[in-house]
């Protein structure tokens, strides 16, 4: 039996047609058609026919008909270039304070947080420095970012520096008609968390009676104003029974992304075991249980070198620390007291950004490693190892098989 301890390394990439790559895995292989976007799974026999250029006319013809194989079998190893990665997206945690106390908050925010906020001029400096090194996407978060009174001044500042995507991630409870108008006038986007269609359950999750009604009022105001909105549902034990109805309600309200639901991640207060939903819900909503992959040239090349998720991103905490992701809070790679560019170009961040799937145990032997997503903070939280495979994937590249339901 092939295991992580005894496997024969097969991790090469071959160019088998223009824009088509064959990626070896331990047991199987995958073909990435970066032009059409398709990914194919190959068994060992198929892989060997392609790589050893065996004379199997029928199978090779099938591949050529799909546009996957050179007519002259001119296969060569694919060499990945190693570009420098710049800053593409920044989260700004304007405050650690939140008016709610959600059960699962990864940042452990609450009204009781007594953290002094950074002055507006520091945030303006971060926004300007980000723009100078090419960043054009920004999200204000917290805590609850609308607690930070100068948030709209900062949004205007970001617009003036050319940010093309500016979003506020809020619980919605502090929004009113005036604030929605400012959001609309500034061309901002909004993302909102909603936990249930049942007010009692939503309020149970947020720890605040009446929060459901306030959030729903905000959603209606935003909808009326035609502000682009996304709604996310985090599933935990407390709200799992209403997930279906919640998603249906979101859809009926006419919001895009109503299907956006994910299982609570075991970070911050979310680490409490009694928050995890039932195993079948975890599997249905939070586990990769079947191969569904797409590809393109850009993502393929990026994933060969860097992490599929946090590459190009940073978060700035309410204390000015720079971290690679809001959920990766222990990985402090700098502080805004220094130039942002120093942290972005520094080794600690670049090393984190470059945790490709090739550096992750088990995933490095998987043929899907350049099409798959990732969440390093989740893997680290669940296993204690930053370089471990996340438990929320049911594929075993050492057997080439997906777990059956309930195994």
């Amino acid at each position, binding site marked *: 039996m092939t295991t992580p301890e005894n496997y024969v390394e097969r991790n090469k990439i071959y160019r088998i047609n223009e824009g088509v790559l064959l990626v070896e895995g331990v047991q199987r292989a995958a073909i990435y058609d970066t032009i059409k*976007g398709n*990914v194919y799974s190959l068994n060992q026999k198929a892989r060997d026919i392609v790589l050893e250029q065996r004379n199997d006319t029928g199978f090779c013809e099938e591949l050529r008909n799909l546009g996957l194989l050179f007519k002259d079998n001119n296969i060569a190893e694919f060499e990945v270039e190693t570009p420098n990665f710049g800053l593409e997206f920044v989260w700004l945690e304007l405050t650690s304070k939140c008016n709610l106390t959600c059960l699962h908050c990864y940042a452990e925010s609450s009204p009781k947080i007594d953290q002094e906020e950074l002055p507006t001029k520091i945030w303006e400096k971060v926004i300007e420095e980000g723009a100078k090194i090419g960043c054009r996407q920004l999200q204000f978060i917290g805590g609850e970012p609308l607690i930070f009174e100068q948030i709209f001044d900062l949004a205007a500042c970001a617009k003036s520096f050319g940010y093309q995507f500016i979003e506020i991630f809020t619980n919605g409870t502090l929004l009113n008609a005036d604030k929605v108008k400012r959001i609309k006038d500034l061309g901002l986007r909004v993302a909102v968390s909603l936990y249930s269609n049942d007010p009692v359950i939503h309020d149970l999750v947020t720890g605040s009676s009446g929060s459901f009604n306030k959030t729903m009022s905000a959603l209606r105001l935003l909808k009326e104003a035609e502000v682009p909105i996304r709604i996310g549902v985090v599933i935990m034990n407390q709200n799992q029974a209403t997930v279906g109805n919640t998603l249906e309600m979101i859809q009926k309200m006419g919001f895009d992304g109503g299907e956006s639901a994910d299982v609570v991640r075991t970070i911050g207060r979310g680490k409490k075991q009694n928050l995890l939903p039932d195993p079948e819900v975890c599997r249905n909503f939070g586990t990769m249980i079947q*191969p569904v992959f797409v590809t393109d040239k850009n993502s393929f090349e990026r994933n060969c070198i860097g992490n599929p998720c946090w590459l190009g991103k940073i978060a700035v905490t309410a204390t000015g620390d720079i971290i690679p992701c809001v959920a990766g809070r222990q990985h402090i790679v700098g502080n805004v007291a220094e130039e942002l560019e120093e942290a972005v170009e520094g080794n600690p961040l670049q090393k984190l950004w470059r945790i490709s799937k090739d550096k992750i145990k088990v995933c490095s032997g998987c043929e899907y490693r350049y099409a798959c997503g990732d969440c390093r903070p989740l893997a680290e939280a669940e296993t204690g190892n930053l370089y471990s495979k996340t438990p929320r994937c049911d594929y075993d590249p050492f057997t080439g098989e997906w777990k059956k339901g309930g195994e």
Partner: protein
Amino acid sequence: MLRVEAEKPEIILVSPSTTGSGNEKQTSQAGPCAPQCLPYCRITICRPDGAPPLPPPPWPPPRPPGPHRG
């Protein structure tokens, strides 16, 4: 004597759809993260450099069909 049949070459499409309108729609709506990541990753579908959107890594995966609790 047990005879083991030689393995046949096998190729399986593991993308959500083949080329055509379905795939184009999927790609045009895709972002650097799967939409299901919104509650945590909180990333949008746009890219700063105007490049075509990245395909969505399947993390977490699409929900399987069938009834949900509640």
